[in-house]
């Protein structure tokens, strides 16, 4: 099911209307491409809005968070994240790699699980520490 629906994980990127997320006001930004391929941004109340719009237009990226299958830990899933923003067009491929992984406890937080995923320069990193849970071992000692 995941594989058949990966196509749905396509982030829109060609619209010219954006909502600025730099601050809570949420200016409605309009982006126009000039003849010299520079961008004109309107609707922003401050210069941070313009920077945001340009970045979103030229190279939109998102931090990706997900979980990986893990054996031998107290729970079945290890939370993970991308070490930096993943280009939006590469997110589906990035997730596919995440879901292929089968890890074994223990894993420490900040461990690089995959490096330079598909040549993107972005790593996959564990965001939690998971001890190995053996039978008859109890978790607390209060």
């Amino acid at each position, binding site marked *: 099911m995941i594989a058949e629906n990966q196509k749905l994980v396509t982030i829109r990127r060609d619209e010219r209307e954006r909502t600025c*997320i730099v601050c809570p006001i949420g200016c409605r930004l309009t982006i126009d491409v000039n003849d010299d391929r520079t961008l004109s941004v309107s609707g922003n109340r401050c210069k941070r809005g313009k920077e945001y719009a340009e970045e979103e237009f030229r190279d939109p990226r*998102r931090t990706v968070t997900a979980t990986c*299958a893990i054996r031998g830990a107290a729970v079945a899933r290890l939370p*993970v994240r991308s070490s930096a923003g993943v280009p939006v067009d590469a997110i589906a491929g990035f997730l596919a790699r995440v879901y292929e*992984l089968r890890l074994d406890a223990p894993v420490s937080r900040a461990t690089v699980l995959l490096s330079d995923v598909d040549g993107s320069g972005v790593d996959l990193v564990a965001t939690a520490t998971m001890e190995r849970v053996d039978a008859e071992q109890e978790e*607390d000692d*209060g």
Partner: protein
Amino acid sequence: MDSVRVAIIGAGVSGAAIARRLSEYDLSVALIEKEADVSFGTSKANSGIIHGGFHHNTKYLKARLEVQGAGMYPQLHRELGFPYRRCGIVVAAFTPEEMTAVEHLYRQGVDNDSAGIELCGADRIHGLEPKLHSDVIGGLYAPAGGIIEPYRFVFALVENAEQNGVRVLRGFDVCDATFSGDAFTVTSGDGRSIRADFVVNAAGLHADEVSARFGAESFTIHPRKGEYHLLDRRTAACPDRVVFPVPTSVSKGMLVIPTVEGTVLLGPTADAVDAKDDVDTDGSRLGEIVTSAQRLIPSVSAKDIITSFAGLRPALDDGDFLIRESSAVPRLIQVAGIQSPGLTAAPAVAELVKDLLKEAGCELTERRSFTRTLAPVRRSRLLDDEELHDAWRADPDAGEAVCRCETVTRDEVRAAIAAGHTTLDGIKFYSRAGAGRCQGAFCTPRLIQIVCEETGRSATEVTKRGPGSELLVDRLPGTPDTPAVRTGTTRPTRSRTTPNAGADRRVDAIVIGGGAAGLAAASEIAQAGFHALVVDREPALGGILRQCIHNGFGLQEFEEELTGPEYAERYVEEADQHRIDRVTSTTALAIRGAAADAPTDAQGFITTLLSKRRGVAHVRSRAVVLAMGSRERNRGSIQIPGSRPAGVMTAGAAQRLINIEGMIPGKRTVIVGSGDIGLIMARRMKLIGADVEAVIEIQPVPSGINRNIVQCLDDFGIPLYLGHVVTAIHGSRRVNGVTVAPIENGVPRTDRSFQIDCDTVLLSVGLIPENELSRELGVRLHTQTNGPIVDASLMTSVPGVFAGGNVLHIHDLVDYVAEESRRCGRAVAAYLNGDAATAQVPIAAGSNVRYVVPGSVRVGATSTHYLRSMIAKVGAKVEVTVDGEVVQTAREHHVQPSEMISVEIDGTSLQPDASVEVSIR
């Protein structure tokens, strides 16, 4: 093919009572039920009343059986131990005309031999039921009436019948019946067959269809719907007795019913419907129920509703029961039209059917070894500490609280499964797990896991109420088949032989909850040199952050963007550095203050803890920090009408199922509410390969922050319907869609409603501070925040009890939770040091301010306060006035209700009698 002497079709209360009665004889009996469990039809959704014998005229069979049946309950209760209380019934009259009608009922009751029935004047009736409306001028009292839990009664009957040899066939849908060689052959849709010499048709709503399958007489069952609200146990409106209005020509009216579990039932309505599976609730009818209940008992409040449901009465044209041998098919006994008072009459119906079978030629010889009594079902919630500890010694699972609202322990859930109840509804009816105020948001993932462990099923096979109502649709890649992977935590430990008396401990401060709030407070307490103990119900510290795997946390506090688990681990590591004591997998059952006259070394608080490792243990502390966080508002809180299928859950429950358990709860989702949790879950559903059809928000503006609107919805092209409301949920077993209507002038425009197909509805409709422990401790709560009222040092109305984080008021950022809780921890340390309390001045919430926390400012100091705006505005001002004069103005770039505002209030030159107000302009 199996062969029995008597087959009973339908395992509702009639069929179950008949089966149990017949099990007293030397006879082979089969009890056949088409649903996944017994009592899943009319018997699961009704008023649960043992009637008083005054509502019906003696000319009706049902009147005679009602009185006879009611008289049999006390003995059945002694034998089978189901919950039953003979609390009596009052009928309340408001006018002289109504009193005339009441006198009529009284005479009917006398004719029916209703024991102890009396007429009451105003003084008598208000004495019997003090919560009645003051306008009530008199009425009727029937002391023989009472209340039971109908499904628990059916379960007890069936269990006892099974003990005495009755075979129960669940999921057996009679689709064919033939007669040959002087026996009936009854065949189910799945091909199973059974032969029987006699058949009892107790098929409830479907009795007419079953009669037709046997070629017997034709009659029509008309389903008549009754809708109910269920109120939380903590409602102020729980009456001592069942309260009826004066009946009308069509119905007994809508009642206020105290249940044996301490909750309150309001209803029922009475509406003829076409379909025998139409148990949808209707928004307007649900409103009427509250109004009419408030007429009887004014303290009824819609705020206490935890769920709403509907049941169907199987009515015949003449309104009476039909109980006789079929005129067309000998040896077929018809038991049809068993509507109210069918529950009351059930034992008498069984008696009558036994006689009819005998007349029809079924010889009845009493068994030599009839087991008349059933071992009582243990209820952890009703045990005192010592009894619960003993239960844990016998079975360590009694130390694991699975359902926290109802304090249901794991052994109770196992007992339900062992008794044949393997659906979540069946487990709920048997054990009450999931029946409380959170309606399963907390325990559903745990219950699924226990069903898997006990039955060997995979998680995707576990249902709400039988095939078609599966709770989960798939697993994430790599998640094992059954969720039972925690080998280390499910086995008992040796320490259960340790006597409890020695387990009592003494600490300076106990911190209830090991999320961000509890850990931040505990770290400050430890840093000041005091001994803090953190208690958490989960196996790992970190609280809800552990399931919030997304990024966006910590920008304020750490100035970097962390995910929830990373943020949690920073706090756990800080707690480790301070060597803070902690007990995990442990539930705090109660906190109580020591007696005021206790010796100095026994003063403070005693907290009762329950764990699988230690059973019941007590911790004595000088101070308590409430850091329990919050729970999600659910469907009952916002009252979405419609059906009650699998696939409706809170966003947080879905988040846990996905991120911790690795399950996929649905493939096509509609999200109700645009709060941040809902938006985050919209993106999460997309990233695990599911569709998100829409987010529906009742307000004209989104509740979540812009970044989440953009990155969770816009990025994926998910439509956000602002100013829209879900007016109905559809689907009988699993959700198949919702109806959505736009809001205009504050009301839904049903003429412009539309439908969205989906298999999952996630609710993200707000959080409620989790204050059950606080309430029982006597802490006063704030009507706006639903959290404790605290002074400038975050101390509650009970000296020595402090609160911080979401238990106090709902925060939008965990950084604020941590900041506030650090302040709380420092205040606890000052309290433990015996620092003298300084004078404080209350702060009033002025224009456009919903609340200010803490609601007092210390004289001679500057303090931090959080407030919530009621308005959205760019370029706002936060003004502090003292005695009407503006003394402080802070400019806010932008305010909106969903974002908390932090202000420093300077109290250095305050007079102790000053009047302080904070406003937003």
